[in-house]
């Protein structure tokens, strides 16, 4: 028994002789936001399409809600909401009419599903405006409304902020955060923008040329990403005194009985070590931590970087 909402094993997709997705083992945990990061054409959309059964799987397996998806499609798909590329809406109908069609096709979970979904994404209910007259931002919102119309447990969002203006992007982020934090939904999303994933995701999967290079949690990455000097000394109070008096340092915090974090990384550590030792304080270690996320991704992708 595991708590993976989506798990793929050795998932592979061949287009002609080319491996678009190569033996991907993806793990999306319940209640988390999983960000799939990779350049355009890395295979993100293809993975999502295979999970949703929109394109046949060459080899490998997909299991959703803890069960293999094969033969259970009818029971599984109603529990997923998705936006993959531009959603297919009827251009000559209004947003409300479009959603009502989808509501009838899929069924609903609450009496006013269409009205509620529109309200959540900030579009007017029973508006006269035709879908063909919608702006890109409105189309994207309607896509989201359609994805959440049946209140699904799992959302799969392919590049949800693509083509939105800065305000739209901020709104979309806030919205995705809300779905996760306040409603406990599990979300799989993709993006080619590092900062986008960094603000939204709890877990992150880095994909390059169809290969999943790494799966890790944001919390783990953030630890690597902060800038500070970690100092391990025998006498913390005495050390703080020396730092304050001799080096005029104010921006530090005491972590444990023997460890200090100094946030001013420009500090001359050689001089600090010397001063501490002179006062009979043993310095067990002093290390500078200043990896940035970009550095990390460069390392992972073999120097090319991501975005």
């Amino acid at each position: 028994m595991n708590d993976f909402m989506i798990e793929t094993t050795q998932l592979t997709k061949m287009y002609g002789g080319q491996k678009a997705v190569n033996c991907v083992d993806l793990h999306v945990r319940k209640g988390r936001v999983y960000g799939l990061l990779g350049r355009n054409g890395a295979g993100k959309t293809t993975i999502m399409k295979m999970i949703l059964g929109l394109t046949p799987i060459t080899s490998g397996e997909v299991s959703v809600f803890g069960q293999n998806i094969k033969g259970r499609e009818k029971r599984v798909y109603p529990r997923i909401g998705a936006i993959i590329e531009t959603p297919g809406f009827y251009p000559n109908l209004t947003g409300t009419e479009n959603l009502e069609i989808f509501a009838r096709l899929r069924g609903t979970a609450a009496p006013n599903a269409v009205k509620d979904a529109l309200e959540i994404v900030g579009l007017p209910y029973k508006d006269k405006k035709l879908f063909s007259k919608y702006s890109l931002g409105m189309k994207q919102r309607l896509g989201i409304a359609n994805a959440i119309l049946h209140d699904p447990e799992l959302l799969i969002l392919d590049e949800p902020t693509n083509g939105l203006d800065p305000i739209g992007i901020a709104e979309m982020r806030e919205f995705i955060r809300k779905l996760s934090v306040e409603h406990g939904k599990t979300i799989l999303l993709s993006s080619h923008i590092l900062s986008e994933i960094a603000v939204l995701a709890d877990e992150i999967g880095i994909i390059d040329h169809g290969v999943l290079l790494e799966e890790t949690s944001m919390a783990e990455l953030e630890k690597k990403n902060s800038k500070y000097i970690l100092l391990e000394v025998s006498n913390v109070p005495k050390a703080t005194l020396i730092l304050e008096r001799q080096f005029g340092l104010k921006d530090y915090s005491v972590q444990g009985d023997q460890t200090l974090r100094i946030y001013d990384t420009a500090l001359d550590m050689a001089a600090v070590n010397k001063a501490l030792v002179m006062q009979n304080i043993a310095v067990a270690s002093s290390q500078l931590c200043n990896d940035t996320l970009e550095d990390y991704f460069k390392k992972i992708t073999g120097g090319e970087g991501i975005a």
Partner: protein
Amino acid sequence: MDINVYLLAGLIVSLFVILYLVANLLRVRQQLSFINEALKDLKDGNLNRRVLTQKNDMTRQICYDINEIAITSQSRLIQQKQAEQAYKRLMTSLSHDVKTPLASLVGYLEAIESGFVEGAEKDEYIHVAFEKANRLKEFVATLFEWVKLDAGEQIYHFSVFDINELTRNVVAEWVPILESADMEYNIDIPEKECPVRADLNAYTRILNNLLQNVLTHSGADHLTLGIEDEAHRVKIMVADNGRGISSSDLPHIFERMYQGDHSRSVKGNGLGLSIAKELVTAHKGTITAASVPGTETTFTVLLPKAL
């Protein structure tokens, strides 16, 4: 002859009726099996599970009710989890926020006690230690105030005040502080009376915290305080031209212990804005912030007028 035709017609009609009923029975049976599966899932703790239902479904109302129960329990569970997490975060940051000044305080006292410093330097050490002890005391007091607010144990004494008069009185006490901090200010409070149901101490605290926040964190040299009388509510704005708040920090600034610069700055305790928010909420009002870093950062409090 005639009778036979009627019999045949009757037979055909009843055949259709039977077919219709059987189809209906099968449909309901399938829907019941869906409900059954969803209920089992809900019972196992997956509160995000929903039962979808179609327009002409006999079980429609039952499905909606099941969903509603699931949604209610889910949101209760999430709230509980969030409170737990917040408490955990509070305890960790608390341990750092108390540990750091305490360690430094011990450092100073140790130096004095061991005779490491003498004469004027010793006096200065005592002075610094005393200040640090006072700051720690203040921090602990603020913390208790916050905990009390958070637990809903604060008792308010509401009565109707002229908010303009009240604000003028509070600001009057700030004028010398602003002047000694070389902060230019622009205060625009209408003459006309504006009645608001408020707790005198709480309202004073809200203003104090907002002004203190500008003073300690913004690095601004100009502050604006304005009140606008709107139809059913009153708008109190505190703006500065300081370094501002980045859009990624903006959604979090009212959370307890959130400090924008990610380092533990010496000043401030990360509680002021969180307390202000609790107090504004107790007045059935809202507090929001908007910022263009380096140009203008505005905190806006909206309170309902007593009519």
